[in-house]
């Protein structure tokens, strides 16, 4: 920058020249300063590559506080912390600080830490019941979100002792009871709250929910009772039908779970109640009052059995034979089990006596045989082939009552 020569060559510069000179000096100084700025780095500056991490370390700009504050790494933070939690501050202030800290954790859904903060606040045992009630209620909310419903209830109960009209405690308590399915308690807590504020929406909602669930529960209980009554009535009808036919059931040694039932049942000569056999098939009574039994046919020659799940008492053995032995069964090696050649027997208890039955008889007639005893609610019968060597040897050792 060169000023055009305006002054004649003289020894002293005039005022105008002086001003210009000053301006020039200032500009030069500014230039030098700017140059210095460009060449030397600012000592407190953040570094280009790591500016985000560095920013995070400055307490003012922290998005999240570190869970543990290391005074070496974060001296400023440690400083602030000791300021806030100074034990020399009055307990009410400390408690309030803990409350705020807890609330912040709560907002972040860090419920465990929230509980810890509120607990610290309560430990201060400050003299303000209102503040303690809030601490308890807030802790209850944190417990609720952690699933600790009982702890939550303890807290709100304590809160209400301190401040009986603390509406938030009542609301929280009602919601806890609802979760625990204590519908009556939930409703009575809601009613107490509604006495304080009859329009409180959460209370009205919770009460309506609890009411509905309670009534559904009661309905389900009634329904279950009716099913039970029906089942028992059916069992009784079954027993009556069997008794009316003079069919003898083997008295079962009652198993543990049946013992209670036996006490309630009218004493039958047969005793026992379980009407299911091992496979779960049951004797049943149809609409016409006729019974059908799950029945076993035993073929001792080959150690085989046939199971008829519902043998109608009015059907004849021969009817079943005709169907079952239309084709010889695979185990019938000698192909001799033909319907016309089959003989029907049942064994008596001691297994020493054997009675013959006619295949033309119905199941009912067989069951009504004076010596027949139904075991395990499943009638069983022996099938042999007439005159076969096996049948002769089988029957040899026993007392046989043949058909006349």
């Amino acid at each position, binding site marked *: 920058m060169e000023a055009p020569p305006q002054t004649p060559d003289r020894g002293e510069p005039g005022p105008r020249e002086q001003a210009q000179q000053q301006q020039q000096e200032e500009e030069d100084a500014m230039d030098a300063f700017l140059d210095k700025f460009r060449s030397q780095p600012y000592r407190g500056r953040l570094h280009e590559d790591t500016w985000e991490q560095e920013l995070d370390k400055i307490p003012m700009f922290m998005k999240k506080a570190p869970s543990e504050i290391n005074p070496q790494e974060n001296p400023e933070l440690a400083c602030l912390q000791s300021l806030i939690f100074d034990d020399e501050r009055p307990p009410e202030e400390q408690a309030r600080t803990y409350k705020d800290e807890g609330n912040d954790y709560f907002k972040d859904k860090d419920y465990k830490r929230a509980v810890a903060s509120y607990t610290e606040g309560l430990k201060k045992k400050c003299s303000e019941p209102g503040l303690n009630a809030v601490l308890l209620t807030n802790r209850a909310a944190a417990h609720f979100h952690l699933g600790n419903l009982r702890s939550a209830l303890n807290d709100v109960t304590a809160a209400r002792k301190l401040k009986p009209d603390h509406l938030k405690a009542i609301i929280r308590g009602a919601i806890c009871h609802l979760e625990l399915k204590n519908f009556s308690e939930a409703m009575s807590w809601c009613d107490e709250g509604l006495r304080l504020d009859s329009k409180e929406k959460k209370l009205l909602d919770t009460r309506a929910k609890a009411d509905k669930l309670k*009534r559904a529960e009661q*309905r389900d209980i009634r*329904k279950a009772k*009716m099913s039970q009554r029906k089942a028992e009535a059916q069992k009784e009808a079954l027993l009556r039908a069997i008794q009316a036919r003079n069919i003898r059931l083997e008295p079962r040694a009652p198993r543990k779970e049946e013992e209670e039932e036996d006490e309630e049942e009218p004493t039958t000569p047969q005793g026992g109640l379980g009407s299911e056999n091992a496979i779960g098939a049951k004797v049943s009574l149809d609409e016409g009052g006729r019974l059908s039994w799950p029945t076993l046919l035993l073929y001792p020659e080959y150690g085989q059995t046939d199971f008829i799940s519902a043998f109608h008492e009015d059907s004849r053995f021969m009817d079943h034979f005709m169907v079952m032995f239309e084709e010889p069964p695979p185990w019938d090696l000698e192909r001799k089990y033909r319907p016309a050649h089959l003989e029907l027997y049942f064994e008596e208890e001691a297994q020493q006596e054997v009675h013959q039955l006619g295949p033309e008889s119905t199941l009912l007639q067989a069951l009504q045989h004076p010596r027949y005893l139904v075991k395990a609610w499943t009638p069983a019968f022996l099938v042999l082939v007439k005159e076969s060597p096996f049948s002769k040897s089988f029957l040899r050792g026993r007392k046989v009552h043949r058909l006349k």
Partner: protein
Amino acid sequence: MSVEIFRTDKEMSRMDSTEEVADVARELVTFLTQTARPDVQAEAARHVLGLTGSETGRSLLVAQAGLLQALVKLMDAPPAAGAGSVGDAWRAMVNLCAEPNVHISMLAELPQLPVQLLGRALAPNWPWAGEAAAALANLSRESEPIRELLGKRLECSSDKASQEPSLALIVTALTTPGYNPHSPLHYLASLLSNLSHLPRVRAFLLDPNRRLIQRLLPLIHWPDSAVPRIGVVGTLRNCCFEHGSHEWLLGPQVELLTFLLMPLAGPEELTEEEMDRLPMDLQYLPPDKEREPDAEIRKMLIETIMLLTATAPGRKLVKDQGAYLVLRELHTWEPNPEVRLACEKLIQVLIGDEPEAGMENLLEVTVPPDVEQRLQQLDQQEQQQLQQEREEAGQP
């Protein structure tokens, strides 16, 4: 003072001269006010009570100058002082209030009586609150002016302690067990039923912002005494004339229909599919479920449901909530011919076709005169048939 001066009411009726009777009545007034001689007072009170047993006696007493005041003074006496006479005085007042002919004269002499009675009925410690309620029920049953008078007063509070309007306090007194441990308040229900003839009372009770109707509903099952049941069902029936409120009443906030159907429902077993159509509380009722024993109440319940079917939306709600199933079973069980008839009519509405356009609100339909005549004829025939059935039932 010798006791022979008192006459029993039998003797009074044998008296020929009205003057003699009037004399005795005058004496009674004197004796009633004899606080110095509680035994005399007690005798006088007993005689007054005896007189209130007959219509002539009641008219006589009311006509006697000063007698009502004396009676009221005795009624207000602290209970300790001669409990017998105070009780008799109260019972006498209840009887007097039952006589419609004397209401006007009574009100002329004791204009503050209804309000005073109301105060006593709602006082939690008053041992004669039940009698006060009964007297009010009697007064309000026949007399329109008394109902009006009470109606005006009911919206303000009579209780210094609570700010509740008296009408709300009546509901509270009825529905809070142990409200008055000294006296049963059954007749408050009858009072409420009478008062619900007034539109303003109905509007108050049906206000959705107050929980009044909902608190009355459980009283439909009041055991032991039919008086509160009749009162509450009567109140509900009258309220159901307000068809603007039907949707709210049938909705989830009140669930009126469930409460009306419960006393009509029995232990009968329905199929699972049928049970699912019923409101939850009516499903799978146990085998020992009993129906409402009083036929009059059963009839009122059916009438109330009938009112709820007046509008199309109401009809739909009643149908959807399974009313038909309950009524079907009721009809099979119902021993009383009048109730059975009401039941049939309601079933007809529930299973019949929807009425044509222009007739959506059956309460507001104008009936053409010839149809009106025909309907009246049918009604008469029905009545005759009922009469016949009643006679047949009466014969061994």
